[in-house]
């Protein structure tokens, strides 16, 4: 009884609500007219500026004298040429009956190119209504007749307000291209105030679908503009010829705000990070103290002033700069570095001051600042830390550990390893007979050890030379090394030390040649590689060609020996065992053998690739061989080059940065000579 009573109380309001909803729905349906289909046609579907198109709407509303037409509000450059009116239309049917329906006609003029939208028409007859869908209308420029889409040019995101000195990227784009097209030409009507630099490649191509087509907005020209004076200015009009069309982009008013006074000295506008480095804090009298000040970030890296350090009140005796920045959305992105050289002719401790530096961030409109910094520089009567460092590069008597690499078959010991299965047999022997491990190891020792016939007298002279260099007497060191060379010949370790001495004697060509020759005779030596990098950096030889072979040749040879032994052993095994696993093993060894043989050949090929170093007294580079060639570019002494061909007394060389030209062979120190190999 209780339960049924609760149910009844709960059900009654639900029924009332359902009834009310039904009633409302019936009323709403009563107010609605019957929706009929309507087909809207535009003729033509693309309209040239100033011309009109006809709108025809065919409905299935039965014809009546009372037709109500609600026309859409026309937007933009569309105007009614002829207001819509109704007339009957009929379609003949095979049955013979041909009812009359309502057709609406109108005409609209388009006064500007672009993508416009024609809103919905509402056509009512008695209780029925037909509504059309909104329809895009494409307006074309007068010179675009026959084209699909209107091509226009416009500035892409040009700012209304910029700051004085700001590097502003400005991109001009062609819009609505139906294919990727480059502009034939772009001309600015006038030069804007300040600095305007072309910045090709700025901005990307934007795409968007339109129906079944893809439309492209393509940057046709881009600049980095750096306004120098505050005030109201105008970025000039641009005339562009693209896709056979001539387009003009109107000028744009831009307000240039004055830079805050605090940032006027540096003129730096952007987001930056400042760093400074000192090459050596302890130098000898007369030595150069080099300070590098570097600004990284994004902004007007092209024009900003960098802080100028002073050493004990002195200004720099020499300076240089380098940079690497590219145009980006926030101006130039990358870094700029200034080098300041100081020279002190008195002993003592001095203070190097890098002054405070201020820049302005245009996005946050805030001033940022780095505090002034002081570094201590000590000038010694003898050599400074630089000289000590260089002397420590010398190998001394350790040079005899760096013998020339014996190439492949050139090393007599390796013949033992070439015996079929030797390595495998040796390994099995060691694994299965642990007590014989020591005996087996004895067999390996002569293979691993290189011939070491260290002459005590030569070693003593090497130590003497290193000591002389440590004391700053590089001339004596050089003489001792030269005498040593007469005794031991082309020893990589000796060449390494001679390179260090030549570097200190300002013979860049001999220094680079000796170090590279050492690396050529002993490829893959990490010590030599690091010292070559140090040496070339110190001689400011950038973009040098790399050493062709950068791994020890014995690695390739060892791989070849191991695989050839593996092939023999697996082949022997295969004579008595024919399981799939054995076949796979044999084939695997075979593939590894072929690969290692390829590596071996490639190693030898790299080793033989001729390289050379430009002599101190080199003739300038020329574009063609022969006596009639004119001088082109003077390469720096010590520049390492790849020699690609020789013609008569001239060599065709390629520098590390891809410059190709001819030099007399007499102007080159050849690193590669007939040194054996296979």
């Amino acid at each position, binding site marked *: 009884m209780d339960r049924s009573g609760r149910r009844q109380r709960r059900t009654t309001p639900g029924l009332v609500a359902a009834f009310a909803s039904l009633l409302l729905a019936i009323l709403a349906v009563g107010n609605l007219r019957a929706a009929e289909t309507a087909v809207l046609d535009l003729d033509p579907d693309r309209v040239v500026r100033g011309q009109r198109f006809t709108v025809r709407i065919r409905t299935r509303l039965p014809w009546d004298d009372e037709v109500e037409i609600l026309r859409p509000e026309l937007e933009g450059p569309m105007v009614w040429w002829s207001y819509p009116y109704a007339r009957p239309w009929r379609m003949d049917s095979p049955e013979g009956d041909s009812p009359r329906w309502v057709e609406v006609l109108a005409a609209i003029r388009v006064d500007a190119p672009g993508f416009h939208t024609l809103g919905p028409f509402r056509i009512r007859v008695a209780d029925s209504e037909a509504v059309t869908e909104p329809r895009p209308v494409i307006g074309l420029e007068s010179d675009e007749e026959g084209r699909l889409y209107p091509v226009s040019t416009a500035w892409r995101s040009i700012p209304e307000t910029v700051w004085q000195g700001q590097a502003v990227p400005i991109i001009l784009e062609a819009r609505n291209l139906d294919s990727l097209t480059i502009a034939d030409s772009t001309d600015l009507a006038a030069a804007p105030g300040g600095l305007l630099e072309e910045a090709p490649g700025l901005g990307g191509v934007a795409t968007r679908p339109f129906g079944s087509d893809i439309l492209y907005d393509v940057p046709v020209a881009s600049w980095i503009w750096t306004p120098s004076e505050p005030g109201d200015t105008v970025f000039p009009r641009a005339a562009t010829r693209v896709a056979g069309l001539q387009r003009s982009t109107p000028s744009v008013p831009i307000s240039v705000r004055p830079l805050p006074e605090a940032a006027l000295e540096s003129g730096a506008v952007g987001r930056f990070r400042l760093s400074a480095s000192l090459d050596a804090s302890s130098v000898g009298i007369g030595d150069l103290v080099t300070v590098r000040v570097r600004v990284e970030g994004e902004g007007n890296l092209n024009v900003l002033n960098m802080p100028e350090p002073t050493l004990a009140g002195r200004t720099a005796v020499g300076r240089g700069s380098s940079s690497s920045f590219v145009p980006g959305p926030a101006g130039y992105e990358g870094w700029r570095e200034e080098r300041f050289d100081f020279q002190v002719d008195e002993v003592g401790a001095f203070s190097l001051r890098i002054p405070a530096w201020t820049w302005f961030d245009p996005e946050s409109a805030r001033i940022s600042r780095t505090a002034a910094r002081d570094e201590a520089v000590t000038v010694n009567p003898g050599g400074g830390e630089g000289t000590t460092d260089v002397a420590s590069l010398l190998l001394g008597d350790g040079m005899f550990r760096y013998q020339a690499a014996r190439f492949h078959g050139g090393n007599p010991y390796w013949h033992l390893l070439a015996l079929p299965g030797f390595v495998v047999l040796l390994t099995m022997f060691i694994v299965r007979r642990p007590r014989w491990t020591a005996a087996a190891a004895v067999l390996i020792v002569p293979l691993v050890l290189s011939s070491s016939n260290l002459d005590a007298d030569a070693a003593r002279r090497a130590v003497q030379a290193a000591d002389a260099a440590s004391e700053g007497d590089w001339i004596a060191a050089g003489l001792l090394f030269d005498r040593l060379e007469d005794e031991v010949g082309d020893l990589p370790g000796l060449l390494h030390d001679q390179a260090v001495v030549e570097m200190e004697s300002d013979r860049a060509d001999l220094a680079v040649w000796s170090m590279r020759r050492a690396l050529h005779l002993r490829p893959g030596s990490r010590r030599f590689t690091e010292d070559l990098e140090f040496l070339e950096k110190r001689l400011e030889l950038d973009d040098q060609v790399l050493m062709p072979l950068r791994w020890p040749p014995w690695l390739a040879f060892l791989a070849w020996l191991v695989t050839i032994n593996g092939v023999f052993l697996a082949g022997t095994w295969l004579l008595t065992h024919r399981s799939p696993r054995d076949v796979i093993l044999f084939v695997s060894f075979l593939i590894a053998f072929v690969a290692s043989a390829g590596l071996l050949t490639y190693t030898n090929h790299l080793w033989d690739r001729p390289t050379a170093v430009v002599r101190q007294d080199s003739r300038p580079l020329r*574009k*063609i*061989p*022969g006596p*009639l*060639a*004119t001088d082109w570019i003077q390469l720096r002494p010590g520049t390492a080059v790849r020699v*690609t*061909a020789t*013609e008569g007394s001239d060599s*065709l060389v390629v520098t590390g940065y891809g410059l*190709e*030209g001819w030099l007399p062979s007499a102007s080159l120190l050849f690193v590669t000579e007939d040194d054996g190999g296979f």
Partner: protein
Amino acid sequence: MAKTLRIAGLAGSLLLILLSSSCRNSAPAARVLAGNMSFGRGQYQKAILQYLEADDDVELGRDAVLYNLANVYYALGEGDAALRSWSMAEELTEDVDVLFRIAFNRGVLYYNWGRYDEAYRSFRRALVLRPSDVDAKINLEDSLSRIRTAGPQNAAGENQSVNGDDEEGRRLLDYIRRKEADTWTGQADDSDERPRDW
């Protein structure tokens, strides 16, 4: 003028070698072909090497090799060397096509150097060799026009060299102008059957 200036095509000279080549000459001919391809791609140093290799081995057609080599020199801006190689090729050849190309290209080089009287003489020689060549005619006309407008500073030297030919040149120019009116439409037809208009 610049539009009509051109380094005459290399294919013809290559064909010369290929057509006249025996088996012994096929390797140099292949090198010349490779050189021409390198030249076309802008790989001038590679082209030089290939031509020089061909020059070492070739027995027939050395004139064409030298001619091609000179073209690379010209492309690299080494005018003196180009002139020297063209002269060597000229001494070796009796082929009218090669001689015409050499004269034409030499004219282009002189024109670019501003030595219009020498350019004029070169184009004139080119037209003697191939009277129907329209480009040579246009360049000749342009060179003459430059000589006339060169002004007093050049007049002395140039007039001495050109004076003898001046009247003849003017007549030639007028004649060419009249002829051009007829031949522009048929310039693609460069066959030897055309009546000589020199």
